[in-house]
């Protein structure tokens, strides 16, 4: 069930109500069953796959902990990685690689080679829970984490419904102890959880769904052949759509988790206020970017070695990050653009001091220069989004080729007005949150103010949320 559907709230409300009346162990059993129900709501067949994969990793983790002197420890570790990425590869990438290989053969003049295609539906959330399982296996293998003793705890860590379908990708070291320990009801945190859910609903149903109308029209050709204005409307609208959509999802996920006494990591920190792409990735989909840093970029060599090696590591990481988003060459190009720009930024703007991962850079540049850099970074991101959103590489190139044509239509003014109507309020909210470093606007205001704000939010939702159900963009990943 989608987080912005009434079905989700009809599920969430009784779950929360029953949950807080149970003892710790019963809470975990109940949540595990509720999470499996939540996942099976789409398709019960995929539930079996997730349970099988969870069980395998639970059993393997017992064998690979450094405290065991098992000579096969490394083999089990590699087996687990192959298993996890194998399942992901088969379900998500098999047809993509087969199709691409077939195209290469045809280019070489070799036709009619019967290559198998699976054509299965992508199991929801497979990219997210696979990354969580891999993080767990790696952490246990490296001795950073004790393997879970109870399948119930581990199963719940993997399948806890608020993060199950589209993240944020939870680190075992952060979530597993929360699963294992008693949780107490905290009215403040419960209240904050509700506020996060309201904030997420507005981001998704008001900002993202309305911007989606414009982005779909621009990329779908309803505005006519591509030109400068259509590219601007399309990429800007999609930028706000994907931001509203995914940050909204993350807020609802974090809010729902908070209603159950869990804490999820912050997934977005005002990304469109970044002055470099490097900073952007510290603010955008943080749970993925930190996962990639810790489990891919650093094992590849990270920032050690010469510039060439670092650039290579960045490029490989970002191309794989692009591919994680979907089995299409458009995502590979999206990742490659980011990898290239990140490498260029390192070369032209070398970091003076090493910053801690969670800390965001302090801006020493003047206001004008800072905003110029922010605008440039935003536009580079928008440019890459043309590849992210287009259905194929030729479609993306054709879309961007329109940039040299400036033909104007009166409807474009209305489109820009509508875009501003939905994006500027979110931008202002981001500025407020940047200034206050809070998790949602007015998070430290008195309860009466926040209650009034919540009521206002509900009215905005009632007035501006559309009827057509737009699935969350990140569900397909």
């Amino acid at each position: 069930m989608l987080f912005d559907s009434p079905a989700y709230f009809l599920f969430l409300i009784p779950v929360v109500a029953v949950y807080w009346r149970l003892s710790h162990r019963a809470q975990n059993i109940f949540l595990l069953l509720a999470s499996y129900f939540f996942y099976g709501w789409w398709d019960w067949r995929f539930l079996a796959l997730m349970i099988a994969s969870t069980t395998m990793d639970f059993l393997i983790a017992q064998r690979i902990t450094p405290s065991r002197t098992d000579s096969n420890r490394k083999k089990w570790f590699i087996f687990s990685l192959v298993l996890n990425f194998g399942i992901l590869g088969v379900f998500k990438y098999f047809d993509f690689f087969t199709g691409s290989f077939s195209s290469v053969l045809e280019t070489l003049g070799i036709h009619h080679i019967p290559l198998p295609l699976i054509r299965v539906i992508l199991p929801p959330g497979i990219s997210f829970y696979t990354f969580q399982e891999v993080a767990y296996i790696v952490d246990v293998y490296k001795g950073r984490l004790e393997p879970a003793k109870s399948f119930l705890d581990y199963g719940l860590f993997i399948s806890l419904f608020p993060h199950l379908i589209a993240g944020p990708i939870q680190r075992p070291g952060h979530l597993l102890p929360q699963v294992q320990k008693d949780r107490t009801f905290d009215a403040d945190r419960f209240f904050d959880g509700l506020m996060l859910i309201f904030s997420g609903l507005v981001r998704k149903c008001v900002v993202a769904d309305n911007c989606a109308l414009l982005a779909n029209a621009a990329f779908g050709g309803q505005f006519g052949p591509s030109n400068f204005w259509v590219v601007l409307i399309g990429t800007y609208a999609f930028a706000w759509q994907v931001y509203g959509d995914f940050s909204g999802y993350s807020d609802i996920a974090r809010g729902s988790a908070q209603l159950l006494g869990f804490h999820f990591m912050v997934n977005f920190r005002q990304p469109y206020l970044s002055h470099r792409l490097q900073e952007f990735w510290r603010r955008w989909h943080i749970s993925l970017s930190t996962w990639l840093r810790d489990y891919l970029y650093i094992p590849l060599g990270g920032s050690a070695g010469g510039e060439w090696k670092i650039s290579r590591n960045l490029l490989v990481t970002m191309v794989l990050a692009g591919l994680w988003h979907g089995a299409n060459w458009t995502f590979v190009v999206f990742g490659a653009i980011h990898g290239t720009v990140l490498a260029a930024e390192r070369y032209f703007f070398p970091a003076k001091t090493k910053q801690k991962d969670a800390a965001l850079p302090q801006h020493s540049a003047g206001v004008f220069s800072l905003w110029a850099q922010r605008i440039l970074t935003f536009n580079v991101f928008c440019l890459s989004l043309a590849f992210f959103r287009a259905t194929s590489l030729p479609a993306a190139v054709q879309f961007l080729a329109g940039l040299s044509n400036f033909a104007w239509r009166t409807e474009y003014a209305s489109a820009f007005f509508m875009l501003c109507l939905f994006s500027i309020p979110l931008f202002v909210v981001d500025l407020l949150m940047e200034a206050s470093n809070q998790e949602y606007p007015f998070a430290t205001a008195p309860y009466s103010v926040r209650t009034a704000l919540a009521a206002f939010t509900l009215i905005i939702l009632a007035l501006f949320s559309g009827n057509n159900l737009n699935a969350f963009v990140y569900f397909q990943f």
Partner: protein
Amino acid sequence: MPSSISSSKSPALVYLRVLLGICAILVLLLEICANYLLKQDSETYARVSQQYAEAVKVRSSRSGEPASVLMVGNSLLMEGIDVDRLQELTSSKMRIYPIFLEATGYYDWLYGLQRLFRQGARPQVVVLGVGVNSFLQNSVRQDYAPMLFFDVRDVLGAAADLNLDRTATSNLLLAHLSVFWDTRSVIRTQVLRRMVPHCKELFSLVKPKPALPPAPELAAITTARIRSLRQLCEAHGAKLILLVPPTPSSEQSVRQMAIASEKAGVDSLVPIDPATLSERFYQPDELHLNSEGAALFTSALATYLPVEIGGPKSASSPD
């Protein structure tokens, strides 16, 4: 032991209760306001609910009386037919009961007609008029239709036919049960119309234009759908006529629709060949007929529809 609930009377707990109370009251208020606004202000609701109520009462006419004709369709008929004029021109031969709702397609009317028949409507003739695109679309209208045309079993039937997942099915079900949920996109459109300049033009531009499937698939889908409609109508003693209204550059698909109709054993009526209509007969949206085009279409319909109703299956296209 449920040890995890704190019994504190902190301000957070008090405001939490207030907030949950506000949520409940707002949901209730939204439902009441949407109900009130719909009944007071919505022309669409007033028109369609009245048309529907009259259509439920339609009965087969006795011999010598004008035939009772239930005419259903979307905006192509609404804009393209002057019903009063058509009734005037054909008063001796038929009595027309129209139900026109914009943006409706095959599934809206399949389930809409099923419910009408269940409620006792017994027209002699059912005329269904939607464009080829709408006839082939795999969706139902999310607002008005679930509330006005469907009951719970229709919602579930439509959801099954459309392979909707459980979330989409529950949304459709809620649209049937809750006026606010059904009309929230209408509310949003009305609000945006007041805020965004030239919003109507923008919305007509950004509306997705579904692509037609390839010809063989199109023929198979169309034939199967027309056959289902025919069986439904015949089971309730009504003759089905498929009316194909003109849209620009639709000659090819109109022809395919007529062929599919013939295969399914249903009379199709193409009162005006789209190729004969120039741009000047259409509205600026380049889809709907303007008043001049509507006058032409109404006259042609007044000429050919009584012939279709009176006679057995025949070659119906005027060309």
